[in-house]
Protein backbone atom coordinates (compact mmCIF):
# COMPACT_ATOMS: atom_id res chain seq x y z
CA UNK A 1 0.00 0.00 0.00
CA UNK A 2 1.26 3.45 -0.90
CA UNK A 3 1.01 6.19 1.66
CA UNK A 4 2.60 9.61 1.18
CA UNK A 5 2.10 12.87 3.02
CA UNK A 6 1.81 16.36 1.60
CA UNK A 7 4.85 17.21 3.70
CA UNK A 8 6.94 14.54 1.94
CA UNK A 9 5.71 15.68 -1.47
CA UNK A 10 6.53 19.31 -0.69
CA UNK A 11 10.06 18.27 0.33
CA UNK A 12 10.42 16.66 -3.09
CA UNK A 13 9.13 19.85 -4.72
CA UNK A 14 11.74 21.77 -2.73
CA UNK A 15 14.67 19.53 -3.75
CA UNK A 16 13.46 19.23 -7.34
CA UNK A 17 12.89 15.46 -7.29
CA UNK A 18 9.11 15.65 -7.51
CA UNK A 19 7.38 13.72 -10.28
CA UNK A 20 4.47 15.80 -11.57
CA UNK A 21 2.24 15.00 -14.54
CA UNK A 22 -0.99 16.40 -15.96
CA UNK A 23 -4.29 14.57 -15.52
CA UNK A 24 -4.20 13.76 -19.23
CA UNK A 25 -0.77 12.11 -18.89
CA UNK A 26 -1.89 10.25 -15.78
CA UNK A 27 -4.43 8.22 -17.79
CA UNK A 28 -1.64 6.46 -19.71
CA UNK A 29 0.61 6.11 -16.65
CA UNK A 30 -2.06 4.26 -14.69
CA UNK A 31 -2.74 2.09 -17.74
CA UNK A 32 0.95 1.13 -17.96
CA UNK A 33 2.00 0.91 -14.33
CA UNK A 34 -1.27 0.02 -12.69
CA UNK A 35 -2.77 1.98 -9.83
CA UNK A 36 -0.14 1.00 -7.26
CA UNK A 37 2.79 1.60 -9.57
CA UNK A 38 1.40 4.99 -10.60
CA UNK A 39 0.77 5.94 -6.97
CA UNK A 40 4.42 5.16 -6.15
CA UNK A 41 5.78 6.87 -9.24
CA UNK A 42 3.70 10.05 -9.44
CA UNK A 43 3.63 12.69 -6.67
CA UNK A 44 1.36 15.36 -8.12
CA UNK A 45 -1.27 15.42 -10.89
CA UNK A 46 -2.24 18.81 -12.27
CA UNK A 47 -5.67 19.66 -13.63
CA UNK A 48 -7.00 22.67 -15.52
CA UNK A 49 -10.16 24.27 -16.83
CA UNK A 50 -10.89 27.48 -18.72
CA UNK A 51 -14.52 28.39 -19.16
CA UNK A 52 -17.39 30.76 -18.47
CA UNK A 53 -17.94 31.23 -14.75
CA UNK A 54 -20.72 33.80 -14.27
CA UNK A 55 -20.65 33.55 -10.51
CA UNK A 56 -17.43 35.53 -10.16
CA UNK A 57 -16.70 39.02 -8.96
CA UNK A 58 -14.19 41.50 -7.65
CA UNK A 59 -14.04 42.70 -4.04
CA UNK A 60 -12.25 46.02 -4.08
CA UNK A 61 -11.27 48.86 -1.79
CA UNK A 62 -10.95 52.34 -3.28
CA UNK A 63 -9.23 54.13 -0.37
CA UNK A 64 -10.81 57.20 1.24
CA UNK A 65 -11.56 60.39 -0.66
CA UNK A 66 -11.19 63.94 0.67
CA UNK A 67 -13.73 64.92 1.94
CA UNK A 68 -14.68 61.32 2.68
CA UNK A 69 -17.74 59.52 1.33
CA UNK A 70 -19.66 56.49 2.56
CA UNK A 71 -20.51 55.04 -0.83
CA UNK A 72 -24.11 53.90 -1.12
CA UNK A 73 -24.15 53.24 -4.84
CA UNK A 74 -21.16 52.87 -7.15
CA UNK A 75 -20.59 52.38 -10.89
CA UNK A 76 -17.41 51.31 -12.68
CA UNK A 77 -17.54 52.29 -16.36
CA UNK A 78 -21.33 52.49 -15.84
CA UNK A 79 -21.52 48.96 -14.45
CA UNK A 80 -23.10 49.00 -11.02
CA UNK A 81 -21.28 47.35 -8.14
CA UNK A 82 -22.67 46.43 -4.74
CA UNK A 83 -21.44 48.86 -2.13
CA UNK A 84 -23.66 48.11 0.84
CA UNK A 85 -20.46 47.48 2.78
CA UNK A 86 -18.09 49.79 4.65
CA UNK A 87 -17.46 53.24 3.17
CA UNK A 88 -15.19 52.47 0.20
CA UNK A 89 -15.53 48.72 -0.29
CA UNK A 90 -17.50 47.39 -3.26
CA UNK A 91 -18.21 44.07 -4.93
CA UNK A 92 -18.37 44.15 -8.71
CA UNK A 93 -20.21 41.12 -10.09
CA UNK A 94 -18.93 39.70 -13.38
CA UNK A 95 -22.42 39.28 -14.84
CA UNK A 96 -23.72 42.79 -14.03
CA UNK A 97 -24.26 44.69 -17.27
CA UNK A 98 -23.45 48.25 -18.26
CA UNK A 99 -26.27 50.77 -17.91
CA UNK A 100 -25.20 52.42 -21.16
CA UNK A 101 -23.73 49.63 -23.30
CA UNK A 102 -25.94 46.72 -22.23
CA UNK A 103 -24.77 43.12 -22.33
CA UNK A 104 -21.83 43.88 -24.60
CA UNK A 105 -19.96 45.20 -21.59
CA UNK A 106 -20.32 43.94 -18.04
CA UNK A 107 -18.55 43.57 -14.73
CA UNK A 108 -16.32 40.93 -16.30
CA UNK A 109 -15.14 43.48 -18.89
CA UNK A 110 -14.35 46.02 -16.15
CA UNK A 111 -12.31 43.33 -14.37
CA UNK A 112 -10.41 42.47 -17.57
CA UNK A 113 -9.85 46.17 -18.35
CA UNK A 114 -8.47 46.72 -14.83
CA UNK A 115 -6.17 43.74 -15.27
CA UNK A 116 -4.94 45.14 -18.60
CA UNK A 117 -3.98 48.38 -16.82
CA UNK A 118 -6.76 50.47 -18.33
CA UNK A 119 -8.26 53.47 -16.57
CA UNK A 120 -11.80 52.96 -15.25
CA UNK A 121 -14.39 55.67 -14.55
CA UNK A 122 -15.82 55.55 -11.04
CA UNK A 123 -19.08 57.26 -10.16
CA UNK A 124 -20.44 57.00 -6.62
CA UNK A 125 -23.30 58.53 -4.66
CA UNK A 126 -24.24 58.72 -1.01
CA UNK A 127 -26.66 60.39 1.42
CA UNK A 128 -23.93 62.12 3.45
CA UNK A 129 -23.28 61.77 7.17
CA UNK A 130 -21.44 63.80 9.79
CA UNK A 131 -18.45 61.50 9.45
CA UNK A 132 -18.77 61.06 5.66
CA UNK A 133 -20.13 64.39 4.40
CA UNK A 134 -19.54 63.87 0.67
CA UNK A 135 -22.55 62.93 -1.49
CA UNK A 136 -21.18 62.51 -5.01
CA UNK A 137 -17.83 61.32 -6.27
CA UNK A 138 -16.32 60.98 -9.75
CA UNK A 139 -12.80 59.76 -10.40
CA UNK A 140 -10.70 57.54 -12.64
CA UNK A 141 -8.69 54.63 -11.30
CA UNK A 142 -6.41 51.85 -12.46
CA UNK A 143 -5.72 48.52 -10.74
CA UNK A 144 -2.64 50.01 -9.03
CA UNK A 145 -4.78 52.67 -7.35
CA UNK A 146 -6.89 50.12 -5.48
CA UNK A 147 -5.83 49.01 -2.00
CA UNK A 148 -7.23 45.54 -2.56
CA UNK A 149 -8.60 43.92 -5.71
CA UNK A 150 -9.49 40.36 -4.83
CA UNK A 151 -11.58 38.01 -6.93
CA UNK A 152 -14.06 36.22 -4.70
CA UNK A 153 -15.92 33.80 -6.93
CA UNK A 154 -18.91 32.13 -5.28
CA UNK A 155 -19.24 29.34 -7.85
CA UNK A 156 -16.39 28.22 -10.12
CA UNK A 157 -14.96 25.05 -11.64
CA UNK A 158 -18.11 22.94 -11.94
CA UNK A 159 -17.15 19.27 -11.70
CA UNK A 160 -19.04 18.77 -15.00
CA UNK A 161 -21.96 20.50 -16.69
CA UNK A 162 -25.09 19.58 -18.60
CA UNK A 163 -24.88 19.89 -22.38
CA UNK A 164 -27.54 21.88 -24.23
CA UNK A 165 -29.66 21.42 -27.33
CA UNK A 166 -32.90 22.83 -28.77
CA UNK A 167 -35.94 20.90 -30.05
CA UNK A 168 -37.91 24.03 -31.00
CA UNK A 169 -38.25 25.62 -34.40
CA UNK A 170 -36.41 28.82 -33.62
CA UNK A 171 -32.86 29.80 -32.61
CA UNK A 172 -32.43 30.12 -28.85
CA UNK A 173 -29.87 32.50 -27.39
CA UNK A 174 -28.78 31.10 -24.04
CA UNK A 175 -25.88 31.06 -21.61
CA UNK A 176 -24.97 27.87 -23.46
CA UNK A 177 -24.61 29.94 -26.64
CA UNK A 178 -26.65 29.92 -29.81
CA UNK A 179 -28.78 26.76 -29.99
CA UNK A 180 -29.96 25.98 -33.51
CA UNK A 181 -33.53 24.79 -34.21
CA UNK A 182 -34.58 21.11 -34.56
CA UNK A 183 -31.61 19.75 -32.60
CA UNK A 184 -29.26 21.68 -34.91
CA UNK A 185 -26.34 21.61 -32.49
CA UNK A 186 -25.22 20.66 -28.99
CA UNK A 187 -23.09 22.90 -26.80
CA UNK A 188 -21.18 21.83 -23.71
CA UNK A 189 -18.72 23.09 -21.17
CA UNK A 190 -16.02 21.55 -19.01
CA UNK A 191 -12.55 20.12 -19.44
CA UNK A 192 -13.47 16.42 -19.05
CA UNK A 193 -10.25 14.50 -18.44
CA UNK A 194 -8.63 17.68 -17.04
CA UNK A 195 -11.57 18.86 -14.90
CA UNK A 196 -10.27 19.53 -11.35
CA UNK A 197 -13.15 18.10 -9.31
CA UNK A 198 -13.68 15.15 -11.67
CA UNK A 199 -10.10 14.09 -10.82
CA UNK A 200 -10.79 14.11 -7.08
CA UNK A 201 -14.49 13.27 -6.92
CA UNK A 202 -14.44 12.37 -3.22
CA UNK A 203 -12.85 15.78 -2.47
CA UNK A 204 -9.97 14.22 -0.55
CA UNK A 205 -7.40 16.88 -1.44
CA UNK A 206 -9.56 19.69 -2.83
CA UNK A 207 -11.27 21.49 0.03
CA UNK A 208 -11.28 24.69 2.06
CA UNK A 209 -7.75 26.09 2.10
CA UNK A 210 -6.39 24.21 -0.94
CA UNK A 211 -3.85 26.33 -2.82
CA UNK A 212 -4.65 26.53 -6.55
CA UNK A 213 -3.79 28.17 -9.86
CA UNK A 214 -6.30 30.97 -10.42
CA UNK A 215 -6.14 33.33 -13.38
CA UNK A 216 -2.37 32.89 -13.63
CA UNK A 217 -1.72 33.54 -9.93
CA UNK A 218 -1.88 31.52 -6.74
CA UNK A 219 -5.33 31.48 -5.23
CA UNK A 220 -7.27 29.43 -2.74
CA UNK A 221 -10.36 27.33 -2.41
CA UNK A 222 -12.40 28.99 0.33
CA UNK A 223 -15.18 26.44 0.51
CA UNK A 224 -17.70 24.63 -1.61
CA UNK A 225 -19.27 26.77 -4.28
CA UNK A 226 -22.90 27.84 -4.23
CA UNK A 227 -25.34 25.24 -5.59
CA UNK A 228 -22.74 22.55 -4.69
CA UNK A 229 -24.47 19.26 -5.59
CA UNK A 230 -21.98 16.46 -4.92
CA UNK A 231 -24.57 13.67 -4.86
CA UNK A 232 -25.23 14.11 -8.57
CA UNK A 233 -21.57 14.77 -9.44
CA UNK A 234 -22.04 18.51 -9.82
CA UNK A 235 -19.66 19.77 -7.14
CA UNK A 236 -18.59 23.43 -7.26
CA UNK A 237 -15.89 25.57 -5.62
CA UNK A 238 -15.76 29.01 -4.04
CA UNK A 239 -12.44 30.62 -4.87
CA UNK A 240 -10.35 33.62 -3.87
CA UNK A 241 -7.36 35.13 -5.62
CA UNK A 242 -5.52 38.43 -5.95
CA UNK A 243 -6.42 40.13 -9.25
CA UNK A 244 -3.23 42.20 -9.06
CA UNK A 245 -1.15 39.05 -9.55
CA UNK A 246 -3.26 37.56 -12.36
CA UNK A 247 -2.75 37.63 -16.13
CA UNK A 248 -5.27 38.41 -18.90
CA UNK A 249 -4.04 35.22 -20.56
CA UNK A 250 -6.10 33.32 -18.00
CA UNK A 251 -8.95 35.75 -17.30
CA UNK A 252 -11.23 36.90 -20.10
CA UNK A 253 -14.49 38.80 -20.24
CA UNK A 254 -17.15 37.45 -22.59
CA UNK A 255 -20.67 38.22 -23.72
CA UNK A 256 -23.26 35.71 -24.87
CA UNK A 257 -25.65 37.14 -27.47
CA UNK A 258 -29.13 37.58 -26.04
CA UNK A 259 -27.98 36.47 -22.60
CA UNK A 260 -25.35 38.64 -20.99
CA UNK A 261 -21.82 39.16 -19.74
CA UNK A 262 -19.68 36.54 -18.06
CA UNK A 263 -16.11 35.88 -17.01
CA UNK A 264 -13.90 33.13 -18.42
CA UNK A 265 -11.63 31.98 -15.59
CA UNK A 266 -8.58 29.79 -15.88
CA UNK A 267 -8.39 27.46 -12.89
CA UNK A 268 -5.86 24.72 -12.18
CA UNK A 269 -5.72 22.48 -9.14
CA UNK A 270 -2.84 20.17 -8.21
CA UNK A 271 -3.77 16.84 -6.69
CA UNK A 272 -1.11 15.30 -4.42
CA UNK A 273 -1.07 11.53 -4.99
CA UNK A 274 -1.13 10.34 -1.38
CA UNK A 275 -2.46 6.86 -2.04
CA UNK A 276 -3.76 4.42 -4.66
CA UNK A 277 -7.28 5.79 -4.43
CA UNK A 278 -6.11 9.20 -5.65
CA UNK A 279 -3.98 7.61 -8.37
CA UNK A 280 -7.05 5.73 -9.60
CA UNK A 281 -9.25 8.84 -9.40
CA UNK A 282 -6.81 10.98 -11.41
CA UNK A 283 -6.81 8.39 -14.20
CA UNK A 284 -10.38 9.41 -15.05
CA UNK A 285 -10.94 9.69 -18.81
CA UNK A 286 -13.40 11.69 -20.89
CA UNK A 287 -15.44 8.54 -21.49
CA UNK A 288 -15.83 8.01 -17.72
CA UNK A 289 -17.52 11.37 -17.15
CA UNK A 290 -21.21 11.28 -17.98
CA UNK A 291 -23.61 14.15 -18.27
CA UNK A 292 -27.04 14.86 -19.77
CA UNK A 293 -28.02 16.69 -22.92
CA UNK A 294 -30.91 18.95 -21.91
CA UNK A 295 -33.56 20.51 -24.14
CA UNK A 296 -33.38 24.28 -23.65
CA UNK A 297 -36.57 24.75 -25.69
CA UNK A 298 -38.41 24.11 -22.44
CA UNK A 299 -38.27 27.39 -20.51
CA UNK A 300 -38.58 25.66 -17.18
CA UNK A 301 -36.21 24.86 -14.33
CA UNK A 302 -36.59 21.16 -15.10
CA UNK A 303 -35.51 20.72 -18.67
CA UNK A 304 -36.16 17.35 -20.31
CA UNK A 305 -33.14 15.08 -20.70
CA UNK A 306 -32.71 14.22 -24.37
CA UNK A 307 -30.01 11.65 -23.70
CA UNK A 308 -27.03 10.74 -21.56
CA UNK A 309 -23.63 11.43 -23.05
CA UNK A 310 -19.98 11.31 -21.97
CA UNK A 311 -17.27 13.88 -22.58
CA UNK A 312 -15.50 11.69 -25.15
CA UNK A 313 -18.64 11.77 -27.30
CA UNK A 314 -19.09 15.51 -26.78
CA UNK A 315 -15.47 16.18 -27.70
CA UNK A 316 -15.62 13.93 -30.78
CA UNK A 317 -17.38 16.74 -32.67
CA UNK A 318 -20.83 15.22 -32.96
CA UNK A 319 -23.39 13.27 -30.95
CA UNK A 320 -26.37 11.28 -32.17
CA UNK A 321 -29.83 12.65 -31.47
CA UNK A 322 -32.85 10.92 -33.00
CA UNK A 323 -30.60 9.05 -35.40
CA UNK A 324 -28.92 12.20 -36.68
CA UNK A 325 -25.29 13.28 -36.16
CA UNK A 326 -25.55 16.64 -34.42
CA UNK A 327 -22.42 18.84 -34.36
CA UNK A 328 -21.11 19.88 -30.94
CA UNK A 329 -19.45 23.08 -29.78
CA UNK A 330 -17.39 23.48 -26.66
CA UNK A 331 -17.86 26.75 -24.83
CA UNK A 332 -14.80 26.22 -22.65
CA UNK A 333 -11.33 26.04 -24.15
CA UNK A 334 -9.64 22.65 -23.90
CA UNK A 335 -6.45 24.06 -25.36
CA UNK A 336 -6.24 26.60 -22.55
CA UNK A 337 -7.24 24.02 -19.93
CA UNK A 338 -4.27 21.95 -21.09
CA UNK A 339 -2.04 25.01 -21.05
CA UNK A 340 -3.05 25.69 -17.43
CA UNK A 341 -2.39 22.09 -16.35
CA UNK A 342 1.04 22.30 -17.99
CA UNK A 343 1.84 25.70 -16.50
CA UNK A 344 0.92 24.44 -13.04
CA UNK A 345 3.01 21.33 -13.66
CA UNK A 346 5.92 23.62 -14.49
CA UNK A 347 5.45 25.64 -11.31
CA UNK A 348 5.45 22.50 -9.16
CA UNK A 349 8.43 21.03 -10.98
CA UNK A 350 10.48 24.18 -10.50
CA UNK A 351 9.65 24.63 -6.84
CA UNK A 352 7.39 27.66 -7.42
CA UNK A 353 4.22 26.04 -6.13
CA UNK A 354 3.66 23.79 -3.12
CA UNK A 355 0.71 21.50 -2.67
CA UNK A 356 -1.55 21.71 0.37
CA UNK A 357 -4.15 19.70 2.20
CA UNK A 358 -7.53 21.26 2.89
CA UNK A 359 -8.02 22.61 6.41
CA UNK A 360 -11.57 21.32 6.08
CA UNK A 361 -13.10 18.77 3.71
CA UNK A 362 -15.93 19.74 1.37
CA UNK A 363 -19.29 18.17 1.87
CA UNK A 364 -19.44 15.13 -0.42
CA UNK A 365 -23.17 14.48 -0.21
CA UNK A 366 -26.26 16.55 -0.84
CA UNK A 367 -27.83 18.62 -3.59
CA UNK A 368 -28.89 22.20 -4.19
CA UNK A 369 -32.56 22.84 -3.43
CA UNK A 370 -34.90 24.64 -5.79
CA UNK A 371 -36.26 28.02 -4.67
CA UNK A 372 -39.03 28.13 -2.09
CA UNK A 373 -41.78 30.14 -3.74
CA UNK A 374 -44.56 31.53 -1.59
CA UNK A 375 -46.61 33.01 -4.40
CA UNK A 376 -48.23 30.43 -6.60
CA UNK A 377 -47.42 30.85 -10.26
CA UNK A 378 -50.71 30.98 -12.19
CA UNK A 379 -50.94 28.16 -14.70
CA UNK A 380 -52.61 28.16 -18.08
CA UNK A 381 -55.40 25.90 -16.79
CA UNK A 382 -56.22 28.45 -14.06
CA UNK A 383 -56.97 31.26 -16.48
CA UNK A 384 -57.99 29.58 -19.75
CA UNK A 385 -61.57 29.59 -20.99
CA UNK A 386 -63.17 26.17 -20.62
CA UNK A 387 -65.71 27.31 -23.16
CA UNK A 388 -64.51 26.90 -26.71
CA UNK A 389 -66.06 26.05 -30.02
CA UNK A 390 -64.78 23.32 -32.30
CA UNK A 391 -65.49 22.56 -35.89
CA UNK A 392 -64.65 19.51 -38.00
CA UNK A 393 -62.12 20.07 -40.76
CA UNK A 394 -64.45 18.88 -43.53
CA UNK A 395 -67.31 21.24 -42.60
CA UNK A 396 -68.03 24.20 -44.84
CA UNK A 397 -66.86 27.77 -44.53
CA UNK A 398 -70.51 28.72 -44.07
CA UNK A 399 -70.81 26.34 -41.08
CA UNK A 400 -67.79 28.01 -39.60
CA UNK A 401 -69.18 31.52 -40.11
CA UNK A 402 -72.43 30.43 -38.48
CA UNK A 403 -70.63 28.99 -35.44
CA UNK A 404 -68.62 32.15 -34.92
CA UNK A 405 -71.72 34.33 -35.25
CA UNK A 406 -73.89 32.14 -32.96
CA UNK A 407 -71.35 31.79 -30.20
CA UNK A 408 -69.79 35.25 -30.59
CA UNK A 409 -66.48 33.53 -30.22
CA UNK A 410 -63.67 34.55 -32.55
CA UNK A 411 -61.54 31.40 -32.59
CA UNK A 412 -62.69 28.00 -33.79
CA UNK A 413 -60.56 25.00 -32.92
CA UNK A 414 -60.54 22.72 -35.96
CA UNK A 415 -60.52 19.04 -35.00
CA UNK A 416 -60.21 15.73 -36.82
CA UNK A 417 -62.87 13.01 -36.63
CA UNK A 418 -61.07 11.57 -33.60
CA UNK A 419 -61.07 14.92 -31.86
CA UNK A 420 -57.40 15.88 -32.31
CA UNK A 421 -56.55 19.50 -32.95
CA UNK A 422 -55.53 20.03 -36.58
CA UNK A 423 -55.92 23.76 -37.08
CA UNK A 424 -57.44 27.03 -36.01
CA UNK A 425 -59.89 29.30 -37.80
CA UNK A 426 -60.68 32.91 -36.99
CA UNK A 427 -63.21 35.41 -38.25
CA UNK A 428 -60.31 36.98 -40.11
CA UNK A 429 -59.65 33.73 -42.04
CA UNK A 430 -63.32 33.65 -43.03
CA UNK A 431 -63.30 37.28 -44.19
CA UNK A 432 -60.25 36.47 -46.28
CA UNK A 433 -61.97 33.40 -47.78
CA UNK A 434 -65.04 35.46 -48.62
CA UNK A 435 -62.92 38.23 -50.13
CA UNK A 436 -61.08 35.70 -52.29
CA UNK A 437 -64.30 33.84 -53.07
CA UNK A 438 -63.08 30.53 -51.68
CA UNK A 439 -65.89 28.41 -50.27
CA UNK A 440 -64.24 25.02 -49.88
CA UNK A 441 -63.99 23.11 -46.64
CA UNK A 442 -62.71 24.55 -43.39
CA UNK A 443 -59.51 22.60 -43.93
CA UNK A 444 -58.55 24.64 -46.99
CA UNK A 445 -58.68 28.01 -45.24
CA UNK A 446 -57.65 27.21 -41.66
CA UNK A 447 -54.21 27.90 -40.16
CA UNK A 448 -52.53 24.52 -39.93
CA UNK A 449 -49.48 25.45 -37.89
CA UNK A 450 -51.24 26.22 -34.65
CA UNK A 451 -49.44 27.58 -31.61
CA UNK A 452 -50.63 25.64 -28.61
CA UNK A 453 -49.91 25.39 -24.94
CA UNK A 454 -50.19 22.82 -22.20
CA UNK A 455 -52.56 23.18 -19.20
CA UNK A 456 -49.71 23.01 -16.65
CA UNK A 457 -47.53 25.65 -18.28
CA UNK A 458 -47.06 28.90 -16.34
CA UNK A 459 -49.17 31.72 -17.81
CA UNK A 460 -46.00 33.79 -18.17
CA UNK A 461 -44.65 31.39 -20.78
CA UNK A 462 -47.94 31.36 -22.69
CA UNK A 463 -48.03 35.18 -22.64
CA UNK A 464 -44.45 35.33 -23.94
CA UNK A 465 -45.42 33.04 -26.83
CA UNK A 466 -48.57 35.02 -27.72
CA UNK A 467 -46.47 38.16 -27.74
CA UNK A 468 -43.57 36.71 -29.74
CA UNK A 469 -45.78 35.36 -32.53
CA UNK A 470 -48.31 38.21 -32.45
CA UNK A 471 -51.37 36.02 -32.03
CA UNK A 472 -54.32 36.68 -29.73
CA UNK A 473 -55.24 33.13 -28.69
CA UNK A 474 -53.88 29.61 -28.40
CA UNK A 475 -55.75 26.33 -27.91
CA UNK A 476 -54.80 24.46 -24.74
CA UNK A 477 -54.26 20.79 -25.53
CA UNK A 478 -53.32 17.60 -23.73
CA UNK A 479 -50.64 15.15 -24.86
CA UNK A 480 -53.13 13.47 -27.22
CA UNK A 481 -53.81 16.86 -28.87
CA UNK A 482 -57.35 16.92 -27.45
CA UNK A 483 -58.52 20.48 -26.91
CA UNK A 484 -59.10 21.35 -23.24
CA UNK A 485 -59.71 25.05 -23.59
CA UNK A 486 -58.36 28.20 -25.11
CA UNK A 487 -56.17 30.94 -23.69
CA UNK A 488 -56.63 34.42 -25.09
CA UNK A 489 -54.95 37.75 -24.43
CA UNK A 490 -58.26 38.65 -22.74
CA UNK A 491 -57.74 35.90 -20.13
CA UNK A 492 -54.29 37.26 -19.41
CA UNK A 493 -55.43 40.89 -19.07
CA UNK A 494 -58.15 39.76 -16.65
CA UNK A 495 -55.53 37.95 -14.58
CA UNK A 496 -53.47 41.13 -14.34
CA UNK A 497 -56.55 43.20 -13.57
CA UNK A 498 -57.32 40.92 -10.61
CA UNK A 499 -53.75 41.15 -9.37
CA UNK A 500 -53.64 44.94 -9.14
Amino acid at each position, binding site marked *: MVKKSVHEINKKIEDGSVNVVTAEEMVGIVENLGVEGAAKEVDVVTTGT*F*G*AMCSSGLMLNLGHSEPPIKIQKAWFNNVEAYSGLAAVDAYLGAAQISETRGI*QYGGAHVIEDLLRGKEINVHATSYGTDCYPRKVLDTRITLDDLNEAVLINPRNAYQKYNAATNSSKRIL*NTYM*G*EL*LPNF*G*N*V*TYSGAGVLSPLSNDPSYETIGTGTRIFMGGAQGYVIGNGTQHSPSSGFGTLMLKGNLKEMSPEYL*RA*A*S*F*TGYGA*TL*YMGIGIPIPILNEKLAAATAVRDEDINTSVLDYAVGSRDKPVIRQVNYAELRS*GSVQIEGKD*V*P*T*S*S*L*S*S*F*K*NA*RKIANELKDWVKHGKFFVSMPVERLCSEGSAKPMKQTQAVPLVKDVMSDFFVTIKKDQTVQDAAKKIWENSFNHLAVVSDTGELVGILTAWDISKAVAENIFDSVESIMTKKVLTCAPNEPVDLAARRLDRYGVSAMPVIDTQRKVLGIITSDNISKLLARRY
Partner: protein
Amino acid sequence: MKIKICIPTERIHNPIISESIIETGILLNIMVANIDSTYGELIADVKDSRFDKIKNALEARGAIVSILDQPIHRDEEECIECGACISVCPMNVYSFDEDWSLCVDEKKCIQCGMCIKMCPHGALKLGE
Protein backbone atom coordinates in the same frame (compact mmCIF):
# COMPACT_ATOMS: atom_id res chain seq x y z
CA MET B 1 -17.43 31.90 -56.52
CA LYS B 2 -19.86 32.77 -53.76
CA ILE B 3 -22.28 35.58 -54.39
CA LYS B 4 -24.94 37.38 -52.39
CA ILE B 5 -28.27 38.24 -54.04
CA CYS B 6 -30.46 40.80 -52.31
CA ILE B 7 -34.05 41.19 -53.42
CA PRO B 8 -35.57 44.50 -52.37
CA THR B 9 -39.10 44.80 -51.01
CA GLU B 10 -40.66 46.17 -54.20
CA ARG B 11 -39.46 43.15 -56.23
CA ILE B 12 -40.15 40.42 -53.70
CA HIS B 13 -43.29 39.23 -55.49
CA ASN B 14 -41.49 38.59 -58.78
CA PRO B 15 -39.88 35.21 -59.54
CA ILE B 16 -36.52 36.87 -60.14
CA ILE B 17 -34.27 33.87 -59.44
CA SER B 18 -36.27 31.45 -61.59
CA GLU B 19 -36.50 33.88 -64.49
CA SER B 20 -32.78 34.58 -64.40
CA ILE B 21 -31.88 30.89 -64.32
CA ILE B 22 -34.23 30.07 -67.19
CA GLU B 23 -33.07 33.00 -69.28
CA THR B 24 -29.34 32.36 -68.86
CA GLY B 25 -29.35 28.60 -68.35
CA ILE B 26 -26.78 29.17 -65.58
CA LEU B 27 -27.12 26.96 -62.52
CA LEU B 28 -27.06 28.59 -59.12
CA ASN B 29 -26.25 26.43 -56.11
CA ILE B 30 -28.26 28.20 -53.41
CA MET B 31 -26.64 27.72 -50.00
CA VAL B 32 -28.56 30.11 -47.78
CA ALA B 33 -31.92 31.67 -48.50
CA ASN B 34 -33.78 34.04 -46.23
CA ILE B 35 -36.91 35.25 -47.93
CA ASP B 36 -40.07 36.64 -46.41
CA SER B 37 -42.78 39.03 -47.54
CA THR B 38 -40.56 42.07 -47.07
CA TYR B 39 -37.03 41.16 -48.13
CA GLY B 40 -34.92 38.41 -49.64
CA GLU B 41 -31.27 37.53 -49.25
CA LEU B 42 -29.62 34.52 -50.84
CA ILE B 43 -26.11 33.18 -50.90
CA ALA B 44 -25.23 31.04 -53.88
CA ASP B 45 -22.29 29.43 -55.60
CA VAL B 46 -21.77 30.07 -59.32
CA LYS B 47 -18.97 29.34 -61.79
CA ASP B 48 -16.56 32.28 -62.07
CA SER B 49 -16.96 32.33 -65.86
CA ARG B 50 -20.74 32.64 -65.65
CA PHE B 51 -20.87 35.34 -63.01
CA ASP B 52 -21.19 38.38 -65.28
CA LYS B 53 -24.07 36.90 -67.22
CA ILE B 54 -26.15 35.82 -64.22
CA LYS B 55 -25.38 39.11 -62.48
CA ASN B 56 -26.75 41.05 -65.46
CA ALA B 57 -29.87 38.89 -65.61
CA LEU B 58 -30.55 39.28 -61.89
CA GLU B 59 -29.83 42.98 -61.78
CA ALA B 60 -32.01 43.65 -64.85
CA ARG B 61 -34.86 42.35 -62.65
CA GLY B 62 -34.04 44.58 -59.70
CA ALA B 63 -31.86 42.31 -57.55
CA ILE B 64 -28.58 43.53 -56.08
CA VAL B 65 -25.68 41.14 -56.61
CA SER B 66 -22.35 41.25 -54.82
CA ILE B 67 -19.31 38.95 -54.68
CA LEU B 68 -18.51 37.50 -51.29
CA ASP B 69 -14.75 37.91 -51.32
CA GLN B 70 -14.11 39.01 -47.75
CA PRO B 71 -14.44 35.93 -45.55
CA ILE B 72 -14.68 35.92 -41.79
CA HIS B 73 -11.78 37.46 -39.91
CA ARG B 74 -10.65 36.00 -36.59
CA ASP B 75 -8.92 38.22 -34.05
CA GLU B 76 -6.35 35.82 -32.66
CA GLU B 77 -5.77 37.95 -29.56
CA GLU B 78 -9.43 37.83 -28.54
CA CYS B 79 -10.05 34.20 -29.55
CA ILE B 80 -9.59 31.68 -26.75
CA GLU B 81 -10.08 28.72 -29.10
CA CYS B 82 -13.11 27.32 -27.29
CA GLY B 83 -14.73 26.17 -30.53
CA ALA B 84 -18.17 27.67 -29.89
CA CYS B 85 -18.23 28.67 -33.58
CA ILE B 86 -17.78 25.09 -34.85
CA SER B 87 -21.34 23.80 -34.54
CA VAL B 88 -23.19 26.88 -35.80
CA CYS B 89 -21.28 27.23 -39.06
CA PRO B 90 -23.31 25.75 -41.96
CA MET B 91 -20.18 25.40 -44.12
CA ASN B 92 -17.78 23.71 -41.63
CA VAL B 93 -15.32 26.60 -41.79
CA TYR B 94 -14.11 25.86 -38.25
CA SER B 95 -12.46 22.76 -36.84
CA PHE B 96 -9.95 21.63 -34.23
CA ASP B 97 -6.57 20.20 -35.11
CA GLU B 98 -5.03 17.44 -32.98
CA ASP B 99 -3.72 20.04 -30.48
CA TRP B 100 -7.20 21.50 -29.99
CA SER B 101 -6.15 24.65 -31.80
CA LEU B 102 -8.89 26.25 -33.85
CA CYS B 103 -8.47 26.05 -37.62
CA VAL B 104 -10.33 28.42 -39.93
CA ASP B 105 -10.86 27.45 -43.56
CA GLU B 106 -11.78 30.89 -44.90
CA LYS B 107 -12.36 29.62 -48.44
CA LYS B 108 -15.54 27.88 -47.35
CA CYS B 109 -17.01 30.98 -45.67
CA ILE B 110 -20.29 32.28 -47.07
CA GLN B 111 -20.39 35.27 -44.74
CA CYS B 112 -23.69 34.32 -43.17
CA GLY B 113 -22.59 35.76 -39.82
CA MET B 114 -23.90 32.92 -37.63
CA CYS B 115 -20.53 32.52 -35.90
CA ILE B 116 -20.28 36.22 -35.11
CA LYS B 117 -23.32 36.05 -32.85
CA MET B 118 -22.10 32.81 -31.28
CA CYS B 119 -18.56 33.92 -30.38
CA PRO B 120 -18.57 34.81 -26.67
CA HIS B 121 -15.36 36.79 -27.05
CA GLY B 122 -16.32 39.02 -29.99
CA ALA B 123 -13.34 37.62 -31.89
CA LEU B 124 -15.05 37.20 -35.27
CA LYS B 125 -15.80 39.99 -37.74
CA LEU B 126 -16.92 40.39 -41.34
CA GLY B 127 -15.90 43.03 -43.83
CA GLU B 128 -12.32 43.65 -42.70
